[in-house]
């Protein structure tokens, strides 16, 4: 290093001095937006949104001299402006030396894992024209339905790239990643309380939290807010965490229930059994027997009548805000004692009773908190249903201190595309979607048969050309070759796809199959966008804006790319998309017609957020009166949600909280009729064991395990990292230097956590290199003997094992992974009722060999 560089450091640094320090946080002060100034250079905190996980936190970046150098929470955020570790890693993501800086084209026609695509740089013009030509070929051949858009993570501007653009070119195939996320979690809420969404929690007033795989100080939703609240909640409430692994949250909980993976449903069912048999349900919410006698006697049905002093008296349960508690007991719960559950769950009957009592005694202030760990299992829809139904038993649904739905955020719908569709294009839209949703094997009953996406099925459908073949596909912000179970299935499917364009920041595994690569702006710091979500009992909208200009020639995936395509298509003779964009997305402030992709990007985000910045929503929450004010504040939030209004007004068939789900019954009857099968057959096709009436109450379903126990003696369980930015932080060096903040994990490594007893049996010690194999595939890893692991279960964090993405994330870019991708051994399996891709529940049995 030269002395010149050192001098440079000194002169730049030495003259820097903070001039203004007005406080926004007491004690922990930083400067307000726009107020931080350095001598000789200006610095400014600018609002944007982090989408490193599903919390979608409003954050701010400090911009100095055209660069973003630090991050913090947005003080206007509903959760008070905290951030978790993830946004810090994003600094190394936006300034990742391996980012794509210009469009690329493939020069090696052969596609496959480990095959060098031989990418070469090309112009945007050439890249866009290549894609547009492919689309024109489909239009000319009358097979526009053979175009597919694959959406991974997204902002609400996906209305352009995902919702309207495929329609405008005549394709029904806008495929989202939702089924990789948590649809089976929503299943539980929907088929009890008619709410297909994520819950909120009244942490200020709760007295008990029963967390189902909930690692709420580390991952999933509202993470920084929950981190902030955890210590306070623990002061006044009891916290029990159910997880095969001693998670970050389990480590700090009062109780840890290390359930055998996949048996969460049995545990929930047994807890319900105890609550009813011991008379501990919430009488003011559920109701009571008319004579106040408890007829929920283990192993006995509730009688319809009893004889008392020679008189026959009917047994009446006066049910209040719920539906079907007697049916639930009679059909399922009566025999589901804690002793029954002990054998399945590995949790003692004594502890199950204690937990059930503690939980029920907290009454309407007890929260049963379901997360993907419990729901994203091959039969997880019923585990989700059972665990969520516990909230009904204690009456914490829509209650103070309980589990809540939340306020919605005003939005603007996308303008109607119909006037822009020719008869032929409109007809093409009526083709079935590629993912086989709504068929026998894939009910995906998001509110109706085929109402949800079956993301992962697209791979097989493409290979089978069933219902037809896909010829042209664009993917953005996604990496399904890496992120779906049975990763090798997607690898094969991508080999067969004739033309694929990937819009991405990095050359990801999926990009290695691309014909054209388009460099995407990084969401946090380089582009416009917005999201809506909920935190701390507020609904909110948070904006993304460019804090810095990309160093490369990157564009916004959701707006600029489709606009450029629309322009190219218009030149080639198909102008419907361009007309639609230019007619409808004039600048809401000046009325200007968008002529460039940058203008379209800006006008589109203004269009979709107008309900907020126009001031028309001020009465519902924060006051914002201009676009500029929205950019400055970065976030608009609703007033605080008030519980109690949903009761008896749930969007279920009965308007009640349904233990016996009339809502599920109706949908399943429709689904069976559509597929010309019986309802029992419909459940069988969906890989459930239930028959008859028990199907409509939360009930026990045996865990699915692939691989015979003799060959594959261990159950594989995976979890998330508090540093994972949905699999996009693995090219950040800081990820590896800090990795041991995930309990049991090691810095710079991708270890497999094994109980020391099992280690002894296998003759394994710390640091030994191993191969883990399932019937799906195998990966290489390193042993970590750790007591926070249930014996018989081996546990590994998801996220590492990239063989592309960058030179930090992979050992040899393009061929050799760094660590192991769990999806190589997780079976290509489904939770079919919701269409989801399971990752939890121990459905892969594995064997371990020392290498």
């Amino acid at each position, binding site marked *: 290093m030269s002395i010149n560089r050192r001098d440079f450091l000194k002169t730049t640094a030495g003259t820097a001095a903070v001039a203004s320090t007005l406080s926004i946080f007491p004690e922990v002060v930083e400067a307000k937006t726009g107020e931080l100034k350095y001598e000789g250079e200006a610095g400014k905190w600018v609002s944007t949104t982090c989408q490193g996980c599903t919390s979608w936190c409003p954050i701010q970046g400090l911009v100095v001299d055209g660069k973003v150098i630090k991050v913090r929470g947005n003080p206007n955020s509903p959760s008070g402006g905290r951030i978790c570790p993830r946004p810090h890693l994003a600094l190394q993501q936006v300034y990742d030396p391996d980012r794509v800086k210009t469009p690329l084209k493939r020069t090696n026609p052969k596609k496959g894992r480990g095959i060098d695509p031989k990418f070469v740089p090309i112009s945007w013009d050439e890249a866009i024209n290549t894609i547009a030509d492919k689309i024109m070929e489909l239009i000319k051949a009358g097979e526009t339905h053979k175009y597919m858009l694959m959406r991974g993570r997204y902002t609400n501007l996906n209305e352009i790239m995902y919702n309207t653009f495929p329609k405008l070119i005549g394709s029904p195939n806008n495929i989202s990643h939702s089924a990789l996320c948590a649809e089976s979690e929503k299943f539980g809420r929907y088929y009890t309380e008619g709410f297909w969404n994520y819950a909120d929690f009244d942490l200020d007033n709760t007295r008990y939290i029963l967390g189902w795989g909930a690692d709420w100080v580390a991952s999933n939703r509202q993470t920084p807010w929950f981190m902030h609240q955890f210590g306070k909640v623990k002061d006044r409430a009891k916290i029990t965490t159910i997880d095969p692994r001693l998670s970050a949250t389990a480590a700090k909980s009062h109780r840890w229930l290390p359930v055998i993976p996949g048996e969460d449903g049995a545990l929930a069912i047994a807890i319900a059994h105890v609550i009813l048999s011991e008379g501990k349900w919430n009488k003011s919410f559920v109701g009571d027997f008319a004579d106040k006698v408890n007829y929920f006697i283990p192993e006995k049905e509730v009688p319809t009548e009893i004889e008392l002093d020679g008189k026959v008296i009917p047994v009446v349960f006066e049910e209040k805000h719920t539906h079907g508690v007697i049916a639930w007991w009679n059909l399922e719960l009566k025999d589901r004692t804690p002793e029954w559950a002990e054998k399945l769950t590995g949790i003692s009957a004594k502890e199950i009773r204690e937990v059930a009592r503690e939980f029920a005694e907290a009454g309407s202030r007890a929260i049963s908190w379901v997360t993907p760990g419990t729901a994203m299992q091959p039969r997880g829809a019923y585990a989700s249903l059972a665990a969520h139904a516990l909230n009904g038993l204690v009456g914490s649904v829509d209650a103070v201190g309980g589990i809540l739905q939340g306020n919605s955020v005003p939005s603007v719908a996308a303008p109607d595309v119909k006037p822009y569709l020719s008869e032929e294009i409109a007809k093409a839209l009526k083709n079935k979607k590629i993912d086989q949703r709504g068929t026998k094997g894939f009910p995906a009953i998001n509110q109706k048969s085929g109402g949800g996406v079956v993301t992962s099925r697209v791979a097989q459908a493409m290979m089978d050309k069933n219902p037809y073949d896909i010829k042209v596909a664009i993917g953005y912000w996604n990496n399904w070759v890496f992120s779906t179970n049975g990763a090798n299935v997607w690898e094969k499917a991508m080999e067969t796809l004739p033309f694929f364009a990937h819009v991405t920041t990095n050359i990801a595994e999926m990009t290695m199959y691309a014909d054209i690569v388009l460099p995407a702006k990084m969401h946090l710091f380089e582009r416009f966008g917005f999201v809506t979500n909920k935190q701390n009992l507020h609904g909110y909208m948070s904006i993304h804006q460019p804090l810095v200009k990309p160093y490369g020639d990157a564009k916004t995936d959701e707006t600029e790319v489709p606009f450029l395509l629309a322009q190219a298509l218009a030149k080639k003779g198909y102008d419907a998309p361009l007309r639609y964009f230019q007619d409808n997305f004039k600048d809401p402030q000046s009325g200007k017609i968008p002529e460039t992709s940058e203008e379209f990007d800006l006008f589109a985000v203004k269009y979709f957020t107008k309900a907020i910045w126009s001031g028309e929503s001020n009465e519902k929450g924060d006051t914002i009166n201009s676009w500029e004010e929205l950019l400055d504040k970065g976030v608009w939030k609703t007033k605080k949600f008030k519980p109690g209004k949903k009761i008896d007004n749930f969007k279920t068939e009965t308007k009640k909280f349904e233990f016996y789900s009339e809502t599920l019954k109706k949908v399943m009857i429709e689904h069976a009729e559509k597929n010309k099968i019986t309802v029992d057959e419909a459940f069988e096709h969906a890989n459930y064991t239930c028959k008859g009436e028990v199907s409509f109450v939360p009930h026990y379903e045996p865990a699915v395990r692939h691989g015979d126990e003799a060959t594959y003696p261990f159950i594989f369980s995976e979890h998330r990292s508090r540093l994972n930015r949905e699999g996009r932080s693995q090219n950040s060096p800081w990820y590896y230097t800090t990795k041991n903040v995930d309990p049991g994990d090691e810095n710079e490594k991708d270890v497999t956590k094994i109980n020391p007893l099992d280690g002894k049996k296998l003759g394994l010690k710390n640091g030994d290199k191993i191969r883990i194999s399932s019937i799906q595939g195998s990966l290489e890893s390193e042993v970590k003997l750790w007591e*926070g692991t249930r014996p018989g279960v081996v546990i590994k964090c998801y996220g590492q094992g990239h063989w592309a993405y960058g030179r930090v994330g992979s050992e040899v870019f393009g061929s050799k992974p760094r660590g192991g991708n769990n999806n190589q051994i997780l079976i290509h399996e489904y939770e079919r009722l919701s269409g989801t891709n399971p990752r939890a529940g121990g459905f892969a049995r594995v064997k371990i060999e020392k290498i």
Partner: protein
Amino acid sequence: MAKKYGMIIDLHRCVGCGACDLACKSENNTPVGIDWASHKIETYGVFPKVTYTHTPTLCNHCEDAPCVRVCPTHAMHKTEEGFVVHDPSICIGCKSCMLADPYGVIFFNKTDAFSDYVSDDSSIVKGGTFSKKELSDKAKAPFPNFNAARGAGGYEAIRRKGTVEKCTFCNHRVAQGLSPACVVACPADARIFGDLNDEKSQIATTLKAHKPTVLLPEKGTNPKVFYIRSYN
């Protein structure tokens, strides 16, 4: 009365996330391998009765700092406000301080930090992806998210090869009335920073209300980083 700064880490509120460690790296331009803010982790017990603890660590800014005592050039020294800080311009790199430090929070710069951003022009796809050098050239900085403000008051924003470095309690921020970066970054508000000599300060009143502990009290260093309550 002169100010005497200290820090409390409330382990009950700490959730062990490492945001402090990362914010420190952003603020202080520390390279990989040098972590002024870090943590100790421990798992003990036997399944299913297992306890896991996470204890954030940093320089303790000791009243009686062994590292200051042994430094032959006074590069490691105490300020009037009680910060234990270091002047790399007179550091001879003898590592005496590292040997004397019982906490392992002083680091030696074996190499020129971030020199890969000066020299490494390799890329995955020639002309299609960046290189480190290209990024630092475009950023006109040692690396793109380099924090120039760390260099306030003449301190080297990136410390030279052959010298030691460690946590300064973010004295460049405190001088401007700001809390250290790790304090601001903590999502759990587990850290309290302030003037121990001000009886009314949050740090002084909190210390009174709890039974604080320090690391390695038997070393007699009199640390000014205090821990209250328990992680579990």
